[in-house]
């Protein structure tokens, strides 16, 4: 079954790339981690299309804040270049301190900050910011979206309770695609 899964993953990747990176120019040959990173970047962009932030002004740009240092920042910038989500433009910003964390709609927590996840989540409690974490035990820490590698494919898990608590509306379509909350993945 491994073959089939791989192929499916490849297809999924190809689809994501085709859609998200088409405007990024020729990507050239990349390592598998590169591919993974870029898929994750595309996913982040696509999250913006399936989530509504009722508590905020619906007209301004969708701001994606990157906390810490990691691999996601640059592919993400490539992905969102020239794109919109539900008619809103998209901006990527680097956040240096935790104080500014609530000034964006999506907060991507890089690997460098993995030890502080719980604190970050704590500080954003009740604020309409979608927190995204790349792997690890982020789910347990209350991060809303956590990337995982399932059967060599990039998948993600959604903490619906946390998202609802923050006042975000997540599309059912997105929920359908996400890994079920507990013990749903094999």
């Amino acid at each position, binding site marked *: 079954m491994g073959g089939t899964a791989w192929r499916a993953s490849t297809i999924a990747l190809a689809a994501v790339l085709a859609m998200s990176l088409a405007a990024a120019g020729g990507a050239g040959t990349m390592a598998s981690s590169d591919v993974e990173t870029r898929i994750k970047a595309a996913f982040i962009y696509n999250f913006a299309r399936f989530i509504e932030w009722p508590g905020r002004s619906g007209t301004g740009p969708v701001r994606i804040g990157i906390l810490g240092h990691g691999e996601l920042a640059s592919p993400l910038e490539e992905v969102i270049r020239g794109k919109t989500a539900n008619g809103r433009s998209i901006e990527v910003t680097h956040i240096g301190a935790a104080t500014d964390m609530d000034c964006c709609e999506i907060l991507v927590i890089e690997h460098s900050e993995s030890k502080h996840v719980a604190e970050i989540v704590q500080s954003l409690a009740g604020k309409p910011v979608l927190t995204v974490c790349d792997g690890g035990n982020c789910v347990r820490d209350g991060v809303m979206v956590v990337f995982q590698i399932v059967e060599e494919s990039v998948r993600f898990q959604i903490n619906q309770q946390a998202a609802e608590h923050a006042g975000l509306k997540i*599309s059912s*379509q997105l929920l359908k*695609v996400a890994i079920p909350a507990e013990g749903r993945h094999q």
Partner: protein
Amino acid sequence: MIHTIRSGFRNWPIRLKLIFTGLLTSSIALMLAGTSIVGYQWYQYRSDVAAELTSVADMIAVNSSAPLIFGDQRSAARTLAPIKAETRVAEVAVYQTGGDLFATFVRLGINDAHFPPAARIGDQGFEWFSLRVARPIVVDGENVGAVYIRSDMPDLGPRLYRNASIMAGVMFVAALVALFATSVLQRLISQPIQHLANVAREVSSGNNYAVRAVRETSDELGVLTDAFNSMLEQIESRDQVLETKVTMRTAELTRSNEDLIVARDKAEEGARLKSEFLANMSHEIRTPMNIIIGMTQLTLDTRLDTRQKRHLSMVRSSADALLTIVNDILDFSKIEAGKLDLDMVEFGLAECIRERTASLSIRAQEKGLDLNIQIDEDVPDTIVGDPVRLGQIVVNLVGNAIKFSSTGRIGIHVSLEDQLTLKEKTGADAALLRFSIADDGIGIPAHKLGTIFEAFTQADGSTTRRYGGTGLGLSISRKLVEMMGGRIWVRSEVGRGSQFTFTVLAALPKQIPVQAAAAPGSETARGMVVMPDREQRDLLAEMLTNWHIEAASMDSPAAAIEVMKWSGRVGRTFSFALIDSVLAADEQGRFLREMGVNPELALVRIVLVDRSGSLPTAPGGPAAIEWPVSQSALLQVIADLLGSQKNTSKSMRALATALGAQTTSEGTAVWDRLRRILVAEDNAANREPIMALLETRVPTEAVRMVGDGREALLAAGEEQFDLILMDIQMPQLGGNEAAAAIRLIDARRGVHTPIVAITANAMKGDREIYIAGGMDGYVSKPIDFDTMFLEIERVMTMPVSWDI
């Protein structure tokens, strides 16, 4: 083919045409409606399915958008799973933007799933039982893929089948309804037409213009019926007019016909009365004329001086001429009045001609003319017809020949013109006889030949003056000939003579059976002449042949015996044999012995021809006749001989005729034997001439006169008469009854008194009636003296012995 179907349809009965048309129309309408309904249903169904598929596709598109974006095929497959509930969906495919298949669904049971390349998918498409729908997958305004759905419309087939079945059922019911409706309708249309046709047929077949068609509706057929009826009315009224006209015309015609019939009857009655008057007048004239003639003759026989004799001779000849004229006129008027009926009796032709021409031959001899009668062998001896009228024709023609000839000979030739052909034609036994009378007289000019048979014409007026006569004779002859089924014509040359020829169609007596060959009156007697001299032998044989005796002549008695024996064995017995006494005595003796012992020859009477004049004639022995044999002596001997044999053959009659003629010419032998004569006549006017006539032959006291039959019978009882002249119509007792009574007296006395009937008018079959009634002869009134003498002489010389 089509033409025949079309012409066949054209000839169909209207009933069938209507039904057929109704069915066809309703079927076409139903089929159109059914097809439209089914088509519409199909279209509707397809649209429904298409709409449904589209919504399904849209749902799939929405649900597939996230899996597509996030490349989650597993999720996509999950998304497609509920499609199973949509039974109409056969195949579903989700394509990525690049056209690659992302997820598919194939209904269980479909093995040949085929997904077209994404680029070739239109929005919507149909195949026969297949509907395809494709929808793009759009997320946030971006085309991220496509959905393709195909439905094989599984319930379309059953649904169409169900609809078609319903349609068929409806069509069937509709056809039945249409059939019923058109049947009713056709009754409405074709029945009145049929009714009209029936009426028309009745009119034409029965010529009955009184019938009318019944009008049931007021549509076009009603109009047609009215028109037909009015046409019939017109015809009928015209017929009535015509009929009235015909009736009127017929009545007119009948009236004029009746008028014509009345006129015709009047004319015919006038003509008949005229003829009757003429006949009566002629008859009334004939009686005194006969008396004049008779008395004149009687006076001529008395002692007269030359001058008186010359005057009386002129009276006599003028009276004869006048009587002839009267007779001719009587005959002619009888023929013209259609009152002349021809007898149909059997008679001997030769005998008839000889009898009737006997007196003419005397006249011919007086003028120095030779009268010769020749009758061909094949002419039948006996024919059936009217001997009196046939004789009249012959006498007339021969009389003319004598009248208009001064020298030469007059020939009567009878030949058989035709027999077989006639037999075939008529199927009856008849002979067409041809009589030819030729003379060497003055002849007839060619330009007169055409008219001599017309009445009241003679060769020219001067002829009458020179030769006398009425000119009616030939006309009467022609009419008689025509009545006898023949024709008459003449060939003549002036100065060379004339030849009158006529034909007569004579019936032949019924075929006589073989054994009846000996029946009285038809057979001939046979006689044998045994004489060494051939010339003498032939002379005697010829004499016998002249009297209708079949003669055989032999020179030796032995040969004669042989012939007679042989002949007797075949039923042709000889009646007599003449044997010459010149034969040796022993030959004669042997001959007589042979005659005695042979039973075939026992009845043959022998007559010796006595050359010595000394042979005794013993009673019961052979008769004898003196040599040289005279015809009259031979005649007498043979007649006696045959008479004693009760021979009534033709030969016997010929002998009697010859005897009568001989007596007439020879004279008075008969009258010598008449010593007592009884005359029964009631009319005094007739008594006187009869008395005068008899007085010329016998003494007055020999004649006894009585006035009726009763007196005659009394007289006959008182004494035996040698001759009785008996009037038929008498008061008290008629001639026939008196004769019959006298015959009873005769029987008692063993004698036969000759009785001659005197009849008022010779009528058809009279002779036979009188003979059968016991008379021996008859003369008809008015009494012709010559005829009366001849008849008395004939009766007296008739050597007949009667069976009483």
